[in-house]
């Protein structure tokens, strides 16, 4: 099943994904949840860029005398993913500010108690 593990980077991608996920699952502070989600997105970006790169490539700017380039398509996808991640986080943070305005706290436990 494990074949040859291509590179340490894949381990880091999975590690970051788990760390972010752990933050989202266990932290009761909403901002920490936003940070967790951000870390998970970053891990996916890293995976995408890592898939585009193979050792000895050069950046996908066409110039004479260079034969193998990094794959431009995943890098374009990463750009789009970065911007989508940014806007999602911006909206999430404004939701958090709004929740604080109505519930006076950013902690999920207190919000639940407030709601009861």
């Amino acid at each position, binding site marked *: 099943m494990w074949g040859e593990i291509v590179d340490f980077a894949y381990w880091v991608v999975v590690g970051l994904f788990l760390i972010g*996920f752990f933050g989202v699952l266990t932290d009761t502070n909403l901002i920490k949840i936003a940070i967790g989600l951000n870390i998970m997105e970053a891990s996916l970006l890293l995976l995408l860029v890592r*898939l585009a790169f193979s050792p000895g490539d050069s950046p996908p700017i066409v110039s004479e005398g260079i034969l193998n380039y990094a794959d431009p398509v995943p890098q374009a996808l990463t750009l789009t993913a970065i911007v989508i991640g940014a*806007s999602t986080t*911006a909206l999430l943070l*404004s939701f958090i500010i709004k929740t604080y305005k109505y519930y006076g706290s950013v902690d999920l436990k207190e919000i639940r108690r407030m709601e009861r």
Partner: protein
Amino acid sequence: MIRKSVALVILAILGLLVMGGLAELPLPAERMSESVTSRHILSEGVSDTGAVNLVTAVLFDYRGFDTLGEATVIFAAAAGVVLLFFRHDLPTSRLGLSSLAKRSIMVLAPFVFVTGLYIVMFGHVTPGGGFQGGVVWATLTILLCIVYGTAFEWRFINTRTKTLLESLGAIAFILLGLVGIYRGDFFLSNIAAGFRAGVPGELTSGGAIPLLNLAIGLKVAAGLALIFYNMVKKDVG
């Protein structure tokens, strides 16, 4: 406490399973060799679109529809934030930082603006493009907000101009796309729709890509500035 340990166990298993899947991915070089898309773009990218920077070529020509969708994502996020903080504009009258900071920022601001312009306009030649340049402009407005206080920023670029810029940028993008249809080709066609490819490496090369870059740059800058301004302003509602 139990939730932490349960989460740890489940995430560990998830990590193992995902790692198992990742391990079966082919090597990037091997995948690139037999993938039709990247082989075509790498070989005929420059001749097709006239842009040297292949990432921007992919972003604004081969997969231009993605970029339109994604620009709308920023538009939606900005609209969402404005909707959430929907109170009449009330800029906080914070005085901003010390006069030293204000003086230095006044010197620095034009250079930041020009850098942003450079990134936007030369997107198809050097690394960069509409998004990165737009975000640089947005950070410029954020800088002004922090240093001079939101009151100054409100007078300098008030929200009406920001909304105007944002909408105009978006509509410009769509109009450039419709030119493709008008010229008988498909939506968002570039060279095939009669835009001049020009000499690769020059500023004027790349057909509609620089124009698209500019439209996206304006849009992203206005959108993110709007988001930041609405999040910062004192929420009366």
